[in-house]
């Protein structure tokens, strides 16, 4: 049912010289959902978004966005999408209101519609008091809300957000996501890149990218449940020493420290994982408390970027 797909890409590939930035990516993103690209810096998230917006030409493969062939009709597509760049791209030396009016005029909204929508959005995004302040003097959270307003004024069907919350405090981030869910409710599709696990958790669908290729995809819950690994939480007074000892064993895939706790990913083939780990630590004499826990998204991420997810 391609009719319900906002984005579909086949073998989407982009090379910069000899560097393979995006490697035969296949995507199917349904309409009216928030879809997240999760991955380390340089994994090809931004390059993929730029190809889907028609800003970069794909070296290979093709993409259909909102039913439009991106390679052929990028300008038709541009009227129906909004793209919030990673870097703040409005004008620092214009006020919030001037920036918004400019964007409204670029999308050729008639004056009444433009001003109505600006007023409505300013209220919803709690920026009314700042409407005459220069964008350059706003805080990270305020600028981010302004940028989102600017790319949603023309009511796009599809919104690309490239690391929208990287310069934003947690409270503003929470609020920002509320806005995103409101928009999805009205039928907008949102593609967002992030490297925050809590944000990835909120997405309806998720693709983990690693070195330009798709390492895993699905809903966050699906991915956690289907994770072919046993996760053991370890509490001990000597986290670093425990970690170093455990990593020597081939059945231990990864050990991550979370505060005073350790998260050990253990081969699911091991029938008694806790006993196995305790055996490894016996010689050192370190006292530990261990229990099996449900995997979290970070565990999924670690597995995916180690190439250990089932295709």
């Amino acid at each position, binding site marked *: 049912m391609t009719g319900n797909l906002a984005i579909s890409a086949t073998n989407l590939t982009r090379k910069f010289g000899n560097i393979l930035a995006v490697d035969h990516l296949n995507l199917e993103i349904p309409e009216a959902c928030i879809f997240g690209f999760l991955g380390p810096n340089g994994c090809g998230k931004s390059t993929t978004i730029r190809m889907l917006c028609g*800003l970069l030409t794909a070296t290979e493969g093709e993409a259909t966005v909102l039913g439009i062939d991106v390679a052929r009709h990028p*300008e038709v597509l541009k009227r129906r999408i909004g793209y919030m760049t990673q870097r703040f791209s409005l004008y620092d030396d214009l006020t919030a209101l001037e920036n918004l009016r400019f964007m409204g005029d670029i999308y050729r909204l008639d004056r009444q519609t433009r001003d109505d929508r600006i007023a409505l959005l300013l209220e919803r995004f709690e920026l009314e008091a700042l409407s005459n302040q220069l964008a350059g003097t706003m805080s990270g959270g305020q600028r981010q809300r302004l940028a989102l307003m600017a790319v949603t004024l023309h009511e796009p069907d599809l919104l690309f957000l490239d690391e929208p919350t990287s310069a934003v405090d947690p409270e503003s981030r929470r609020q920002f996501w509320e806005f995103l869910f409101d928009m999805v409710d009205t039928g907008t599709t949102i593609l967002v890149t992030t490297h925050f696990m809590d944000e990835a958790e909120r997405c309806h669908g998720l693709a983990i990218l690693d070195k330009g290729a798709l390492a895993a995809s699905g809903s966050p819950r699906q991915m956690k449940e289907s994770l072919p690994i046993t996760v053991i939480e370890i509490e001990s007074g000597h986290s670093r020493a425990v970690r170093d000892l455990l990593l020597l064993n081939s059945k231990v895939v990864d050990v991550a420290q979370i505060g005073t706790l350790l998260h050990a990913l253990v081969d699911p083939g091991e029938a008694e994982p806790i006993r196995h780990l305790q055996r490894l630590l016996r010689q050192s004499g370190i006292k530990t408390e261990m229990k099996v826990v449900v995997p979290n998204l970070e565990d999924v991420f670690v597995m995916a970027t180690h190439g250990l997810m089932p295709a």
Partner: protein
Amino acid sequence: MISGVSISRVWAIAVKEVRHLRRDRLTGGMIAGIPVVMTILFGYAINNDVRGLSAGVVDEANTSASRQLIAATRASQVVDRLSAADSPWELEQLLANNEISIGIHIPADFERRLALGQRPLAQLLVDDSDPIILGAARGLVNLSVAGFQPTESLTTFELLPMFNPERRSAVFIVPGLCGVILTLTMVLFTSIAIVKERERGNLELLITTPVTSLELMVGKIAPYIVIGYIQVTLILLLGVWLFDLPLRGSMVELYLAVGFFVPSVLTLGLIISTIATTQFQAFQLTFVTFLPQLLLSGFMFPFEGMPKAVQYFAEIFPLTHFLRIVRGIVIRDAHLAALTDELWPLLLFFVTGMIFATLRFSKRLD
């Protein structure tokens, strides 16, 4: 006190600076390119010894002696292309319209003057809106002819400077300055126009919108046309107030011509803006295009003194044409209708430049 200066830190900064230059290929090229190209170009092109001026001749005597005088004038090589005119009045028109630089008027009583030896034999009408042409004409004044010995007080030609008899520099310089200042400011404004948006990251947003390249280009230069008019007005007002500049021709026609000139220089800025990738590069390119215009347009050195090839090259510059227009209208009371040869090159520059800039500006990032 130099105790606070660490040589190793100075060295580190110097090395880093050299690395920046090496990574910036355009700047690297300019380090060698500017001195080499400019020295060769200007060294060959600039010549204060003017030859080959075009002249108009009215020979009312039409005797063998008068024809000898004309031949002697030509032999001096100061004038080259001679064209016949019917009356001194026509010579003045030709001078006003910049079709000739010097008018030679040999009066009907030429033979009598030659016989009596009391008055100059003939007149030289000179376009002194360029002081170097006046200087060249002065070299003809004491031309010797058979049967006439010119002296300090009695010269062969009577010199008639047509437009600036008091020889005030401001009269000659200020109208040209209009063009020079506009060329510098307009190109500077627009050369960073697109580069700035690219550097600040605004462009990535803008090219994701439905805005077209042409809309962007035209919108970028439109406000500066008004600014150009403000600048011209300021320069002319200052010229009148401070330097008593006579505004002889029609100001309406001058402002109309400014409407051709300003968009063409703005387009030059736009072209630079689509080539440069940083504001620093844009600034360098502005300088590189400004210097030849300053030196080769006829503002500082006479156009006629340059080799033909360089003259053809300099015809590309908007400034070359605007100088002729502004000097023509302001100093010589010329009419724009007679200067259309200078208008269409401006229009051509604007249109070609606009097409080039629009095509060069891609709404893609690759």
